């Protein structure tokens, strides 16, 4: 659970910075930040499940 929370915090912080610097309007910043956050979370979970089945 701790690892998931840390990953969520990491994705949120990265999403805030990427969204803020990459777009100009508040709506665009929010949507892009949300997209980056979702991408980090989804890729993190997919990688975690792949690594779970690797026996070393």
């Amino acid at each position, binding site marked *: 659970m*701790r*690892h998931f929370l*840390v990953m969520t*915090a*990491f994705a949120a*912080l*990265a999403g*805030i*910075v*990427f969204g*803020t*610097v990459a777009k*100009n309007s*508040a709506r665009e910043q929010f949507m892009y930040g949300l997209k980056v956050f979702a991408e980090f979370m989804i890729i993190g979970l997919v990688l975690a499940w792949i690594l779970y089945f690797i026996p070393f």
Partner: protein
Amino acid sequence: MTTVDEQTEGAPTRAWLMGAAAWLVPGLGHLLQGKWWRALLLSGAVWICFIAGFQMGGHLFKYTGSEPGLSALLQVPPMIANLGNGLAYIVCWLWDYGFAHGEQQAALPTFEFGWTFLLVAGLLNYLAMLDAFDIAARRKS
């Protein structure tokens, strides 16, 4: 339409100063340009990342030269990432705070998250620094 060369040559001194301010203190480059909302978001994210890194037991990197041969150079990339934290890294370096880690600290389950957060805090601040530079150079609003 301007070329990349024209944009680079056209960057005023103010843009370099804003970039330096943004590197030195996260959010300061935007704050000085009246971009309060951006300053709040960027400085908040970078500082939270930096403080959380230490809270999780992380440590900073610096080039010591004590490692044998070329392996000493492995300290350089993470040091450059940490250096992105600006004044915070310099203060830690002057006080020799946060560079070493004991066995107890290394045994923490969040130890590796910690130094990763510290690296990422610096890298995110580099992005914020470039953003402050671009705004001051009028390449973006």
